[in-house]
């Protein structure tokens, strides 16, 4: 695992403190914000982020802190009833940079704290443009939220506000509005410490302090959009999502990124069956709070107008059930001679789909298309198939993956292979060209988009993308993670596992995979690495299995 993706080790030593009179146990070294979280006491904060270095510059997290008093003899001073006497510090402390110590007394709801929060909010808003009607952050803006909870209802500021650059092009994917920036430096720390691309910094002084890229640099790395998530206000916005839709209309669906074998946990934001954006979802075992820009923006194909919404029989559109009825006997006849059938599965398919595919492909030659590019030493895996591990577990892929594609091509050329079943791959671009495809007597393709291969196919059954189905993926480290349907095209398309279930039934296999839970249970019973697992157990965070 890359070195900057280490999971925090459980701290052994605990200290006892009280927050607003509630007793709390926190690991030694934890700060007041983290300790408060354990007992449901919320300390407002802007610059603090649990995955970033502490900078303590926003002052939003001010709290009252005290501790057991010590006399001149360095002995604890006791109250008449024998309890230690508590001395409160004369000034407020910042919760993010104050570690909890034994016996510490923390107060977050006193008049002094409230006054401080109110004053800090007032300072933040002095030069703030209040662009909310045109600001993409509105609805998920910490300045808006804290303003309601901790701020004043009206401004006392009558002077002209300081104006700073607006609509600044920070990089290919990120837009900056300096007037909205509250100078929390989260973006700077992320780029410096996590993305290891120190490109941002503050210039000028006082009220004129401005966020900018260092001369000659751009916020251009493949992790630049994480700064947009981190930015508590609307200073940094995603150019792709900019002005597309208000966040309060968007439905959140848990998912995972299927752009590489890391399988970063994500949230898909959609409205009325259109995906508008993807953001990372925290999972310390996989991606912490981050994801790469390429994966984040890899959702356009879900909304594409060219998607297949109907089955195609020799290029003619047809209902799914009718196409299945025509295909059934032909496929059954073809499968009678397994040596003449080849299968190209997909490393982009779910475990459930690969399991059904492997049952269908038993006895025939089968392989998947490998996709390897450069990985980085952070999140991006060199293997761009999200479920290459699964394809290996189920034996759908050859060892090494892709080595049998030439065997299939040669088989078709020699006339040995007469039937080809393809899942979600454009084999036309993978060495099985149109001339070879034309030689086949039966080409069945399950895909969600038209390709050169679907054009040549006798039967095309319309599948769906990862954002429309249930299922699990196995990432490069053997972590099984779930996806949930976020959108639906509303056409004749089916979840791919349903298509393979129907194909198995049509070819005379016992129909034992009623729904996804039954299918998963069957898979868990028959495939060793998945033994004992169920969809509920995998849940939102995933489960580690051993892949050998």
């Amino acid at each position, binding site marked *: 695992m890359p070195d900057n993706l280490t999971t925090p080790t459980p701290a052994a030593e605990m200290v006892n403190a009280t927050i607003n009179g509630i007793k709390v146990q926190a690991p030694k070294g934890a700060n007041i914000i983290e300790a408060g979280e354990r007992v449901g006491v919320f300390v407002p904060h802007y610059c603090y982020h649990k995955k970033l270095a502490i900078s303590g510059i926003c002052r939003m997290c001010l709290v009252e802190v005290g501790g057991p008093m010590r006399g001149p003899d360095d002995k604890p001073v006791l109250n008449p009833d024998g309890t230690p006497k508590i001395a409160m510090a004369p000034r407020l402390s910042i919760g993010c940079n104050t570690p909890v110590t034994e016996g510490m007394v923390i107060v977050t709801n006193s008049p002094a704290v409230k006054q401080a929060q109110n004053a800090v909010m007032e300072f933040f808003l002095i030069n703030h443009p209040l662009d909310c*009607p045109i600001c993409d952050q509105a609805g998920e803006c910490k300045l808006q939220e804290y303003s309601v909870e901790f701020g004043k209802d009206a401004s006392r500021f009558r002077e002209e506000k300081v*104006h700073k650059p607006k609509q600044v092009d920070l990089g290919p994917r990120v837009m900056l509005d300096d007037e909205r920036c509250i100078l929390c430096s989260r973006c700077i720390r992320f780029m410096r410490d996590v993305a290891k691309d120190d490109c941002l910094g503050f210039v000028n002084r006082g009220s004129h302090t401005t966020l900018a890229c260092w001369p000659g640099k751009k916020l251009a790395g493949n992790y630049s959009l994480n700064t947009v998530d981190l930015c508590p206000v609307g200073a940094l916005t995603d150019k792709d999502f900019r002005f597309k839709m208000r966040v309060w*209309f968007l439905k959140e669906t848990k998912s995972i990124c299927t752009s590489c074998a890391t399988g970063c946990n994500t949230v898909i934001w959609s409205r009325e069956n259109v995906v508008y954006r993807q953001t990372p979802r925290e999972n310390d075992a996989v991606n912490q709070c981050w994801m790469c820009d390429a994966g984040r923006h890899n959702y356009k194909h879900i909304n594409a107008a060219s998607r297949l919404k109907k089955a195609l029989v020799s290029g003619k559109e047809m209902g799914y059930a009718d196409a299945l009825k025509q295909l059934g006997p032909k496929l059954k006849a073809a499968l009678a001679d397994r040596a003449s059938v080849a299968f190209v599965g997909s490393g982009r398919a779910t475990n459930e789909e690969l399991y059904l595919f492997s049952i269908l492909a038993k006895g025939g030659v089968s392989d998947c298309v490998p996709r390897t590019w450069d990985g980085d030493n952070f999140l991006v895996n060199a293997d761009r198939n999200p479920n290459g591990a699964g394809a290996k577990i189920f034996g759908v892929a050859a060892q090494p993956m892709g080595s049998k594609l030439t065997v299939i091509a040669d088989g078709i050329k020699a006339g040995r292979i007469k039937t080809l079943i393809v899942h979600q791959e454009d084999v036309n671009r993978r060495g099985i060209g149109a001339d070879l495809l034309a030689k086949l007597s039966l080409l069945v393709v399950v895909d969600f988009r038209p390709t050169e291969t679907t054009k040549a196919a006798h039967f095309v059954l319309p599948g769906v993308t990862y954002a429309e189905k249930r299922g699990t993926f196995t990432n490069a480290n053997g972590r099984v993670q779930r996806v949930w349907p976020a959108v639906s095209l509303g056409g004749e398309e089916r979840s791919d596992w349903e298509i393979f279930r129907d194909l198995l039934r049509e070819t005379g296999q016992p129909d034992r995979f009623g729904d996804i839970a039954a299918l998963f249970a069957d898979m868990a019973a028959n495939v060793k690495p998945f033994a004992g697992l169920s969809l509920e157990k995998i849940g939102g965070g995933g489960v580690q299995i051993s892949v050998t």
Partner: protein
Amino acid sequence: MKIERKPLTLWERLYLPAIISGMMLTFSHLFRKKVTLRYPEEKPEMPPGYRGQPVLVKDDEGRVKCVACQLCEFVCPPRAIRIKPMAYPENAKYKKVEKTPEEFEIDMIRCIFCGYCEEVCPERAIFLRGPYSVTGLSRKDMVFNKEKLLELGGTLPDPIKKWRKK
């Protein structure tokens, strides 16, 4: 409670005087100025401040005041409003306003004329001030698009020049 009924006086019992005075009032109206209109040939002139259907307004410079914040779309109880926001193109006159509606539709069949959109609008861009009658020959006719809403709304000068200073 018991209500005492007074017996009618002789004058009242005569009946005709009351009829005649009533008729006189009725006939006297024949010779006064007409107060009715021959609707729909004649359309009523609505006073300023008339609360009609929701429409979009422009400011005195002719700028579309709506910035497509979509708050009215959110607040509208029957979900009559549909907005597609867009960024002002690079060389647009009001580029500094950044955002504007590409499309803005109100389904006047759905609208219940509650006025929430006017109340919520942070830009004072939508007002219930439209014409007296809202009619159309089909459901589609009753979905008013941006152009139509702006035409019905016209110009409404606003003392607050929020975007001047940007």
